């Protein structure tokens, strides 16, 4: 793919990010690099990779496999006694009523969204293989 193709791809990715409300990930100014005291905008090619990787970091926050990995690590380092069964968020009752959530939200209930991350990484790898 040529730089012009990456420019078009970057536009599509920005539009998708904005539709999800991820303005900071879509903001090109957040990808400016400081090179020897000079602030430079990345090429469209670099911008595509950076935005896809930032989206992957965002998706990871709602990925149940991250929860499971962390819980496994915690159970493993405890020397003796009980291991935690789950991780929950305690929400003030007044707030939980408004948002329609339970007072205790289990992080086990975040999405099984690993397939999205696998697809993202495959796409990044296939684009990287296409380096000029």
């Amino acid at each position, binding site marked *: 793919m040529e730089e012009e193709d990456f420019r078009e791809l970057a536009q599509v990715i920005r539009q998708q990010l904005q539709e999800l409300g991820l303005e900071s990930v879509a903001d090109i100014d957040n990808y400016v690099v400081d090179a020897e005291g000079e602030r430079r905008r990345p090429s469209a090619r670099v911008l595509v990779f950076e935005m896809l990787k930032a989206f992957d970091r965002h998706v990871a926050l709602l990925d149940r496999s991250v929860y499971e990995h962390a819980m496994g690590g915690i159970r493993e380092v405890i020397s003796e006694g009980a291991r935690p069964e789950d*991780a929950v968020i305690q929400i003030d009752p007044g707030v939980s009523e408004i948002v329609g959530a339970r007072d205790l939200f289990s992080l086990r209930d975040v999405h099984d969204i690993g397939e999205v991350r696998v697809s993202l990484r495959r796409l990044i790898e296939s684009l990287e293989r296409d380096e000029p």
Partner: protein
Amino acid sequence: VNKGQAIAEVKRIFGRYHGVTQRDDRWLSTLAGGKVYELYCLSKVLERLRQTYGFRLQFRGTNIQFQASPGYIDHSRPHFIIQGSSGHHLELFTDIEFTTLGKSRTQSNDLSSYHEVDLVVVPAGINGRPSHQMIALAVECKSHAIFTKSIVKEVLGVRREMTFLQSSTRSILAQLSPLHPSITVPADPASEYWVAFSDARGLQYAHSPSAFGITFQHWQP
């Protein structure tokens, strides 16, 4: 892959994400995302306390419990016990406000007299809001997909309210550690302050804050 295939795949991936998350409450989704990252950081912190410092770790409670709103240390809430050398015990709590250095000097009691930290390690037996003098380790977990300079400014401000700058001395954790690592901080009290983040760009901001004993940790799930 050609341009058309790449665009189609981008739309498919984003569509799949949207399909899974579209019914989520935005507030709850953001909260849960932040806490998943906090849980990931907790696993990293405990691993380091075990491996680098040699502490023995126990858990009190059934489930790890994060707070939607930060609060006080309450021993009826789940927490971790950290067993150091010579019978010294520490405890780790989540989502705790500590009272500031500025408060101790001005006796003020307004909204500036306390700040939240995501994970805090203090000597065993403390209740309520710990003072800045009681902190052995404080950890901020920044889940932002994009690391921005405002995070650096924020943690510099929190560190200012935690310690005085002084010549380097062994950290409280290092002093209590069975392994006696040679970890020093330029701070009085000699608390450690770690800032965890998932965007590698955060590492570009690490040098100047290190002069104040702020350690940047790139932890990406």
